[in-house]
C-alpha cells in the first residue's frame, strides 16, 4: 500500500486553524475584561470560516492525508510538526470549529466572573482539540492530547457547580492516568516501528502479535477513559453535572470523540490482529455501556446527569460500530460521532438555557415549559427526538448503520444493542413529557421567558445539521468512504488469525456499504 499524501498546496489551512485561537488568546489578554467575549466570539467565528476550505477543497476520491504540512520540530529524535486531515479527522475538526463559537454564545451571560480567563481556556481547548485531530506525528499528538487537560480542568473547577473541585480533579486524574500507558506505547512503537514518530509510517509497519496485544491494551487505557467506555465512565456524570454549560458542550461534543478517534486512527489500522482478537471484549463492553447507560439515564432526576448517561449509551454505539470491523459499522460509528456531537451538544445547551432561568437542573423544578417557552420547547423536542434516533434525523442514520454492521458481526450483539434504542426512547420521551408537556412548576413560572435572539441563533445551526445529516448524509459519507476503506484495507492485509474468510471480506463490505446507504437515504427523502 503506498501512501497518498496531498500537501496543503500553498496555504497552510490547518496551521491557520490552529493558530487563530491562540492569536485570540493574545487579543483577549490585551482587550478589556468587558470586551473579552466579543473578541473570543469574533476569533472563533473567524477560525470556523478559515476551517471551511477544509470541507470545500477536500478531495473525496483520496482516502489519504490531505492539507499535509510537515516541518522538523526536534532533530534528535526526529519529531515533526506534521499536520494533515483525512476523511476521518476533517469532519471532527469542523465539528470543533463549529461548536466553539456556539460555546462562547452559550456563556455570553452565564459566565459573569473572570470572563477573560474563561474565554482563554475555551480557545486553548479549541487549539488543543484541533491539534489532536490533525496531528500526524505521535509526539505532537500526545502534546495536544495532554495540553487539553489543563484548560478543561480549569473550566470545570473554576466556573462549575458546587461540587466542581471534586469533579475537576476526578476528571483530570482519570484521564491523566489513562494517558500514561499511551506515552509508553508511543515510545515502544517508536523503537519497534522503525525509529520514527510519523503516524503514517507507524501505521504501515507490521508488529508481532504479542507486541500488538500489549500496545492495544495500552491504547485502550487511554482511549477507553476518554470515550468513556464502561467501566471507566464514572468521571463523566460528575464532570458533566458540575461543568458550566460550555464545558459540558465541549466535553460531550468534542472531548469524548477523541477516544473513539484514537481507536479509529491508531488501534484499528496499527494493530489489526489485536483488534480482531480483542474485538469481542470491546463489543461486549460496548453493549454493556449501551444498556447500562440507558438504564442509568432512566433513573436520573437531574437533567445533566440524564444526558451524561445517555452519552455513555450513545458512545457505546460508536465503539460497537468501530469494532464490528466492517464498512457499515465504521462509517456508522463516524457518523454517530458527529451526530452525538451535534445532538448532545445541543441538549446541553438547552439545559443551560433552562438553568439560566430557573437555576435548577432538576426535572421536577422545570415542568411544563411548552406554555411559557414555546420556541424553546420546539427546539428541545427536535433535539430530543434526534437523540432517540427518529428516522429523518441525524442519529437514525448513524445508529442504523452501526446496527447493520454489528448484525454482520454477530446477530446477538446487534439484538442486545437495539435494546439501547428502545431504552433511549423511554428515557428521552419520559424526560420530554415531564419537561415540556408536564404540569408547570408554579414556583418557576415567573422566571421563565422564551428564547432571546442569541439563544435562537445558537440553536438554529444545529437544527440544520440534524436534518441535513438525517435526510441527506451522502456528502458526509462520501468524505468518509475513502479513509474508511483504507482502515479496512489494513485489516484485510494482515489479518491471519481465526476468521478464515476475513481476507476477502472488506472489499465486499465496502460495496455493500455503498449500496446500503443509498436506498436508506432515498427512503427517507
Amino acid at each position, binding site marked *: 500500500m503506498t501512501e497518498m499524501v496531498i500537501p496543503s498546496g500553498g496555504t497552510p489551512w490547518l496551521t491557520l486553524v490552529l493558530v487563530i485561537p491562540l492569536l485570540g488568546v493574545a487579543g483577549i489578554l490585551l482587550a478589556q475584561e468587558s470586551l473579552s467575549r466579543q473578541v473570543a466570539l469574533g476569533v472563533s467565528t473567524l477560525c470556523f470560516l478559515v476551517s471551511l476550505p477544509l470541507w470545500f477543497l477536500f478531495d473525496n476520491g483520496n482516502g489519504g492525508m490531505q492539507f499535509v504540512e510537515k516541518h522538523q*520540530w*526536534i*532533530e*534528535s*529524535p526526529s519529531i515533526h510538526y506534521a499536520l494533515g486531515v483525512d476523511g476521518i479527522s476533517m469532519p471532527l475538526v469542523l465539528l470543533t470549529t463549529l461548536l466553539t463559537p456556539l460555546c462562547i454564545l452559550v456563556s455570553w451571560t452565564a459566565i459573569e466572573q*473572570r470572563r477573560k*480567563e474563561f474565554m482563554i481556556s475555551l480557545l486553548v481547548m479549541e487549539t488543543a482539540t484541533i491539534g489532536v485531530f490533525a496531528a500526524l506525528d505521535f*509526539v505532537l499528538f*500526545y*502534546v495536544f492530547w*495532554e*495540553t487539553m*487537560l*489543563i484548560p478543561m*480542568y*480549569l473550566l470545570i*473547577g*473554576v466556573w462549575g457547580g458546587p461540587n*466542581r*473541585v471534586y469533579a*475537576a*480533579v476526578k476528571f*483530570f*486524574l482519570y484521564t*491523566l*492516568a489513562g494517558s*500514561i*500507558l499511551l*506515552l*509508553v506505547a508511543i*515510545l*515502544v512503537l*517508536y*523503537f519497534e516501528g522503525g525509529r520514527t514518530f510519523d503516524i503514517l509510517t507507524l501505521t504501515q509497519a507490521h508488529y508481532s502479535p504479542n507486541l500488538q496485544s500489549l500496545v492495544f491494551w495500552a491504547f485502550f487505557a487511554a482511549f477507553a477513559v476518554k470515550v468513556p467506555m464502561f467501566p471507566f465512565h464514572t468521571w463523566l456524570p460528575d464532570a458533566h453535572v458540575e461543568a458550566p454549560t460550555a464545558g459540558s458542550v465541549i466535553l460531550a461534543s468534542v472531548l469524548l470523540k477523541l477516544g473513539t478517534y484514537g481507536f479509529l486512527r491508531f488501534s484499528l489500522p496499527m494493530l489489526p490482529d489485536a483488534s480482531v482478537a480483542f474485538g469481542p471484549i470491546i463489543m461486549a463492553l460496548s453493549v454493556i455501556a449501551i444498556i447500562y447507560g440507558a438504564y442509568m439515564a432512566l433513573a436520573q432526576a437531574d437533567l445533566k446527569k440524564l444526558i451524561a448517561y445517555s452519552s455513555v449509551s450513545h458512545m457505546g454505539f460508536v465503539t460497537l460500530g468501530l469494532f464490528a470491523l466492517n464498512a457499515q459499522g465504521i462509517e456508522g460509528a463516524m457518523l454517530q460521532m458527529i451526530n452525538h456531537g451535534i445532538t448532545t451538544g445541543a441538549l446541553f445547551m438547552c439545559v443551560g438555557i433552562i438553568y439560566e432561568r430557573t437555576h435548577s437542573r432538576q426535572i421536577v423544578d422545570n415542568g411544563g415549559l411548552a406554555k411559557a417557552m414555546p420556541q424553546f420547547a420546539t427546539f428541545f423536542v427536535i433535539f430530543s427526538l434526534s437523540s432517540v434516533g427518529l428516522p429523518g434525523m441525524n442519529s437514525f442514520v448513524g445508529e442504523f448503520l452501526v446496527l447493520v454492521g454489528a448484525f454482520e458481526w454477530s446477530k446477538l450483539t446487534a439484538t442486545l444493542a437495539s435494546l439501547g434504542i428502545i431504552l433511549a426512547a423511554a428515557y428521552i420521551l419520559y424526560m420530554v413529557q415531564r419537561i415540556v408537556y408536564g404540569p408547570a412548576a408554579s414556583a418557576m413560572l415567573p422566571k421563565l421567558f422564551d428564547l432571546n435572539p442569541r439563544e435562537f441563533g445558537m440553536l438554529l445551526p444545529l437544527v440544520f445539521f440534524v436534518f441535513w445529516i438525517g435526510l441527506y448524509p451522502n456528502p458526509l459519507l462520501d468524505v468518509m468512504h475513502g479513509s474508511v476503506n483504507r482502515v479496512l484495507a489494513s485489516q484485510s492485509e494482515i489479518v491471519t488469525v481465526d476468521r478464515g474468510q476475513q481476507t476477502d471480506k472488506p472489499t465486499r463490505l465496502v460495496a455493500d456499504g455503498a449500496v446500503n446507504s443509498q436506498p436508506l437515504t432515498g427512503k427517507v427523502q
Partner: protein
Amino acid sequence: MNIPLADIVTILPELIVIGMACLLLVLDPITPKSKKDLLAWASLGALAVCVIMILGSFGGRVMAFSDLVVVDGYASFWKLLLCLVSGMTILLSMTYLKEEHIDLAEFYGFILLALVGMMVMVSGADLLVIYLGIELMSITLYIMVGFKRFEARSIESSAKYFVLGAFSSGILLYGISLLFGVAGSTRLSEIASTMNDQSLSDPLVLISLMLIIVGFGFKVAAVPFHMWTPDVYQGAPTSVTAFMAVASKAASFAAFLRVLLEAFGGLKPNWTGMILVLCLLTVALGNLVAIVQTNVKRMLAYSSIAHAGYALIGLVVAGWIGTEAGVSARGVSSLMLYLAIYSFMTLGAFSMVAILRNGGLEGEELNDFTGLAKRHKGGAFLMMVFMVSLAGIPPTAGFIGKFYLFMAAVNAGLAWLAVIGLVFAAISAFYYLRVVMVMYMREPSSEQELTTRLALSPSVSVVLACAIAGVVLLGIFPGPLVSVADLSTLPVK
C-alpha cells in the same frame, strides 16, 4: 612547588569565583548598609565573567594538576547550569533577604563559595578532589541554612543538616579510604584500570562501592537517605532552599555519575541493582508522602526527592547491563537534560513561595495560596505553569524532561520502569494540581485580599522571567538544549 601556568588557566573560572567570594567577605563590613546591593551586583558580574570563560573553553577535554581535575564538556555543562542557578539565587535573595531582615552581603559570598565547591565537584577526576568540593559546598550550606538566626526552626534545621551531612561525608570518606586500600589510588581513571573481573566479587570493593553510593545518596536525597531533606528545606530561608534543591542536587548528581561511570564503569553489575532499588524507592516515597503535605515548602521538598528519583532512571539506564554504548550515553544525557529543566521549574516555584512572604503572609502554607488568582493574576498564572511543568504535562519543559528520560528507559528495554515512573508522575499531578486548585478554585478571605502584595522587585522579576522562559521555551523548542546535552554527555564504557 611548581605549578604550571596552563593548569592555573584551566581552573580560572573557579579562581575568579573564589576570589570574588573572599573579596565580598572583606568588603561586607566596610560597605554602608544602603550600598549592600552593589556587592550582589559585583558577584553577579563575577559569575558573568565565569560563564563567558566556560563558554569559551567549551568542548575540549583538558586534564590538569596531574590528572586531579578534568575540564570536559560534561563538567562545563554542569558549571554553566550551576552558575546560572547561583545567579538566579543571588537575584532572588536581593529581595528576599530584605523581607526577612537578614540582608547581609556575606550571604552572597557564601553562595559563591558553595558554587566553587560544586564546580570542583563536577570537575574532579579524583575522589579526594570531589570530596573536597562536597565539603566546601556542604559547610557553606550548613551556615546558609541557619542564616535566619533569630528563628529556632532555621537553626534547628541547620544543626540537623550539619549532623547528618557530616555523618554522610564520613561514610563517603570511609568508602574512599577502603577503595584506596584496594586500588592504591584515588584517581578515577586509575581505579577503573585496577578493576577487573575479580573485583566484581571482591567484598572490599563491594563495601566501598556501597559506602560511596550511600554517601552520594545522602547528597542527592535519595530514599532511604532522604530523612534530612523535608526538615532542612522547610527550615532554611526560602532562597537557600531553592539553591539547595537545585544547585547542590545537580552538582551531587554530576559527581555521582562521574564516579560511578568513570571509576566503576567495569562494575556495572554491582551497582545497577542498587541504583534501581534507590530509584524505585525514591520515586515512590517522594511522591506518596508529598500528597499529605500542607506546607508548600515541605511539599516541594518531597517533590524534589521524587524528581531525584526520576533522574536516577537516567543513571539506571546508563548502568543497565547489555545496552549499547549509545543507549547508555542517552541515559546520561537525558539525566542532564532532566536536571537542567528541573532547575528552572523548581527555582520558579520556590521564588513564588519566597515573594508571597510579603505583607504579613507566610507564603509557606498551602492556605496562603488561597484565591491567589483573584488577588494576583500574574503570580497565580506563573505558579500554575511551574506546577504543571513539575507534574510533567505538555507543552511545558517538565514533559520534555520526562519524555527523554522515559524514552531512554524504553530504549534500554526498561519499558516497565517507564510505566512505574509515569504512574507516579500521574500521582504527583494530584498534589501539584492541589496548589492550582487552591489558587484558582477557592475564594480568598477578606483579610488575604487586603494584605496581598507580592514582593515583586525588578531582580525577582528577572528570576521569574528566566524561570518561566526556561519552562515554556524548553517545552516548545527543546532542540538546542538536547543537542548540547548529547554533545557533553560522559563517554560511557
